[in-house]
């Protein structure tokens, strides 16, 4: 299935969870936060939050700014 990760469409297995997506991308898990279709997914729910086909996943971290 295709989902939109940080604005880019990518292919993931059906029933992939947020944790699966982060692992596949090799994203550092400390200091990041995830929003699924505009709603925050708490860290403790990453392993059971299933990403639906066509969903929008945003992965954010802190950078220099302000």
């Amino acid at each position, binding site marked *: 299935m295709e989902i939109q990760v940080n604005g880019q469409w990518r292919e993931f297995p059906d029933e992939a969870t947020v944790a699966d997506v982060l692992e596949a991308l090799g994203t550092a898990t400390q200091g*990041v*936060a995830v929003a699924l279709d505009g709603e925050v997914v*708490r860290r403790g729910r990453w392993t059971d939050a299933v990403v639906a086909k066509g969903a929008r996943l945003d*992965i*954010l971290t*802190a*950078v*220099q*700014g302000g």
Partner: protein
Amino acid sequence: MDGDLLVIGEHKLTSRLVIGTGGAANLAVLERALVASGTELTTVAMRRADSEGGSGVLELLKRLGIRLLPNTAGCRTAAEAVLTAQLAREALETDLIKLEVHADDRTLLPDPFETLDAAERLTADGFTVLAYTNDDPVLALRLEEAGCAAVMPLGAPIGTGLGIRNPHNIELIVSRAGIPVILDAGIGTASDATLAMELGCDAVLLATAVTRASDPERMASAMRAAVTAGRLARGAGRIPQRFWAQASSPPR
């Protein structure tokens, strides 16, 4: 000035200089400037995790023992700012948020309506909100009523280095505020930071003035001294201004 603490919500700070990390040439330059500034609270922005230069700044701030102040820079609406704040809280495990909602790219001025809307939602959600606002005494009061822990009026637009364009408005804000007032944006050099403190501000936030100075470390030292000097002068009670001279030596 032992025991002269800056209290923002539950957070207590000795330093009255908040530094923004944007604009530094590299992390080594940033580190020297942060150490020289004596800051205990420093801003970071939230961006997509695949963008360049991500995690280094977090490791640096952790190593220096500096508290994080995530901001919502880049947000145009209250809804965007609320989501960004929630993501920052989740990623960085802090309730502190510097709320900024910019109206447009040329001025980067805060949008008052979206800012107030977001402030109400974020305080209801348990955040300690530091709200970036125009130098508007009425809006500052409204933000305080919305439950903000601090208001951050601008001296001039972000990155301009134009100093404090309306000192009287800053004094008006200070005179009625029951929460800390942090002068944010527009600082160009040390005298601007001193003036902010002499006007009664509780702290100063600046980034560009240090990070884009020719010698960021030296400018950070200057800002530290400037904030301390302004705080001391404010507390010392300046003399009234006079039209005519008054001899300081005894008449013979």
